[in-house]
């Protein structure tokens, strides 16, 4: 069975500090991977998606970047956090870009102070 693991579970970070969030998929080769951001009480905004290793497409950047260094790993990062980065970050995977269930990870809750 496929599993999706996000880390860390939660972070409290200072404005201006760097950030790295991770997502790992086990049990499925070459998944499509996605990053979403959700403000408290808000909707989900897709940030990035990746179809293959080394390739990442940006949907909305929000002063963030993403990388896919391995087939099963997706990283979200920034060198300088803003207050507006606070929220809930969700990683998701699918078997292809459509016609599939998008399975979401348990998320990382980020508070920037």
């Amino acid at each position, binding site marked *: 069975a496929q599993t999706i693991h996000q880390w860390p579970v939660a972070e409290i970070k200072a404005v201006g500090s760097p950030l790295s969030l991770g997502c790992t998929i086990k049990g499925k080769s070459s998944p499509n991977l996605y990053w979403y951001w959700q403000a408290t009480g808000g*909707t989900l905004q*897709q940030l990035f998606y990746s179809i293959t290793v080394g390739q990442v*497409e940006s949907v909305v950047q929000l002063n963030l970047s993403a990388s896919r260094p391995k087939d099963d790993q997706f990283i979200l990062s920034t060198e300088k956090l803003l207050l507006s980065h606070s929220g809930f970050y*969700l990683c998701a995977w699918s078997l292809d*870009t*459509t016609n599939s269930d998008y399975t979401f990870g348990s998320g990382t809750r980020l508070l920037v102070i």
Partner: protein
Amino acid sequence: AQSVDQPDAHVTLYEGASLELRCSYSYSAAPYLFWYVQYPGQSLQFLLKYITGDAVVKGTKGFEAEFRKSNSSFNLKKSPAHWSDSAKYFCALTGANTGKLTFGHGTILRVHP
């Protein structure tokens, strides 16, 4: 461009009543439509999807949805509602080979015992 509208930010009803959460979409090609549920503090759980075929699709937790191309809607239904259905529900849209899953703003459902 693709967009999803969930016109009701909140829906409140009593246990045993029928529930219907509204979703309309805008998309120039054949839409792939999804419903997800989010319980407080948790990630998203998949309920059901429409890709093609029968207009009425059945999903988990006793939910079903009807795709109506004529008015670009994909409303979620359940009867009877249970207090445990209280959560936030998201409608989402994608299309063939876009890599983008667009969410509505969500509807918070409260079912009173």
